[in-house]
């Protein structure tokens, strides 16, 4: 939990940015830096959840930005605040400026722009909070498995073309082949591609002796 109380100057800058049209022209790098600084200053120094998986690219980028802010500024919240305010100035904020008139930025858009989170009834307060399951950063230890899980046949094809020595029938450290994983996740295009590249459908899962199929009704239960 952050023990730092942001100054009114910071509050004013954050209020400005939550609604500033200039933000739409800003690079994602700057937006992410603002996001990281904002979370660092208002929530806690580092994220209180585990790092999202690589398939949640937005969530992961945000997490990384927040984590970077924590690593960069450590206990020096004053410096983090100064940096936030400096960026805000570049984007048109000044001490005497009231929040930008609304309507320039779509208020329904993503919350990661250094403004208030939409969590909690108006970025403000009362109510319970929505939670989803924390994703653990477990790795399959295999690029092939990761691609099979992700389900993007095009990327997998590029990977296989670039790495002609990869054996598509290799088991990863969990005992799964790429075909096992693609079948389990229901990625039909990937299954087709793997079979075309010589994947062997007769290989059994060692630790998990169940039949693999992609019929959703039978998977259920």
């Amino acid at each position: 939990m952050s023990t730092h109380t942001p100054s009114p100057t910071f509050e004013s800058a954050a209020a400005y940015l939550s609604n500033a049209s200039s933000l739409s022209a800003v690079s994602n790098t700057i937006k992410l830096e603002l996001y990281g600084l904002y979370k660092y200053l208002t929530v806690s120094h580092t994220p209180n959840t585990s790092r999202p998986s690589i398939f949640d690219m937005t969530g992961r980028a945000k997490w990384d930005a927040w984590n970077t802010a924590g690593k960069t500024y450590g206990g020096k919240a004053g410096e983090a605040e100064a940096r936030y305010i400096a960026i805000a100035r570049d984007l048109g904020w000044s001490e005497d400026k009231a929040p930008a008139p609304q309507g320039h930025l779509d208020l329904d858009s993503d919350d990661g722009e250094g403004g208030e989170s939409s969590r909690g009834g108006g970025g403000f307060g009362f109510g319970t909070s929505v939670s989803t399951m924390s994703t653990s950063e477990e790795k399959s230890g295999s690029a092939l498995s990761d691609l099979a899980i992700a389900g993007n046949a095009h990327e997998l094809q590029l990977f296989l073309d670039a790495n002609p020595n990869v054996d598509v029938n290799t088991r990863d450290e969990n005992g799964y082949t790429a075909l096992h994983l693609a079948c389990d996740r229901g990625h039909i295009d990937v299954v087709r591609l793997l079979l075309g590249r010589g994947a062997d459908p007769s290989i059994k899962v060692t630790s998990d002796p169940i039949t693999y199929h992609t019929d959703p009704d039978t998977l259920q239960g």
Partner: protein
Amino acid sequence: MRQFWGTQPVPQLGEESPTADGYIEPSKPSEEVRQEPYPLPKDFGWTTVDVNDPVQLREVYELLSGHYVEDDVASFRFQYSAHFLHWALQPPGYHKEWHIGVRVASNNKLVAFISGVPMTVRVRDNTFKASEVNFLCVHKKLRSKRLAPVLIKEITRQCHLKGIFQALYTAGLLLPTPISTCRYYHRMINVKKLVEVNFTSVPSSMTLARLIRLNKLPDTPKLLAHGLREMEDRDVPQVTALYNRYMDRFGTAHIMDEEEIRHSLLSGRGEGPSTPDSWKIPREKQVVWTYVVENPETHRITDYFSFFSLPSTVMTTDKHNLLNAAYVFYYATDVALLDGAEEDGRLKKRLEEVLGDCLIIANCCQFDVVNALTLMDNVQFLSELRFHTGDGMLNYYLYNWRTAPLAGVNPVGGVPAGKGVGVVML
């Protein structure tokens, strides 16, 4: 926003924890309470929302469904049902003046809401009347109008007018200053759907099929053959007595009399008869499910548990519209009242049986997930019953009351995690 909280009778962030409990500012005599509503920006006007009028109830429902609490990456947004709101906003002794809305003057559209309901709360050794404040919501397009502070000031004024000077509220956000912070945990029921809506993902070390099998639940509650049944009106006196004895074990509690227990645990059970099978079939308009275990010989109620329905709108996939979540509500077992039962593991074992049946019933009733916080005795059964860590936190706050931090997600002093918090918010 912190400028606003700096003006309010709440402990400021970074203040040292108090050595003695008590109010921050004294209660005002009624003639000193401000009589006029706080001014709103021009073009807006106050309204008292009558939730017994289906049209107005619908307006609150629609405001909250479109603009209330979302998760951090805007994948899910709470969708409290109209029946739920009708139930939650009208406990015994409720004041219609505490159901406050803001309308646009020109077209009468409801664009903001805040509510309070009366409660008796115990915080450590002090018991007092308070307002449980909830459902603060401002239309997304009006977030820059600074309506929330005015809504908070107005609900405070309305509470003062009724002689209430303390409030309890919760928020995902960090405000000055939590008395405790709890973490959400989730028990997957419909694993496939939870993966499809990105509520969770299959770890790469596992297959979806295996994850489904690991979370499979039996068809029938284990205690069904030992006196488990739906709670009925005749159980209210015994459940109330067990409730208050059980809750006495936590640092804070919502003190309830029989009428309040009847409201909280029974009045939201919907319409329809009790039949031998009704334990597993949701009723029309049902928002809360409560079960008791009656000893077949002595006919004493030895245990009860309850959960409520709070769905979320799924915003990031077209495959599903709604995530059906059940939230663990109040429960108790008389095992907790036996000497040494907590130390020797009997309480933990009984809680696993009782809450295990709660999961089985939630599954029968077609819920996708069961959620619980690290409060009361939950920490004792979460991991055994396959709950997993959530990314959401819930902070508990008191308005105009000081107390030292209470055990929530973390133990505090000698108090184990969870046992500082005995109030479940809707």
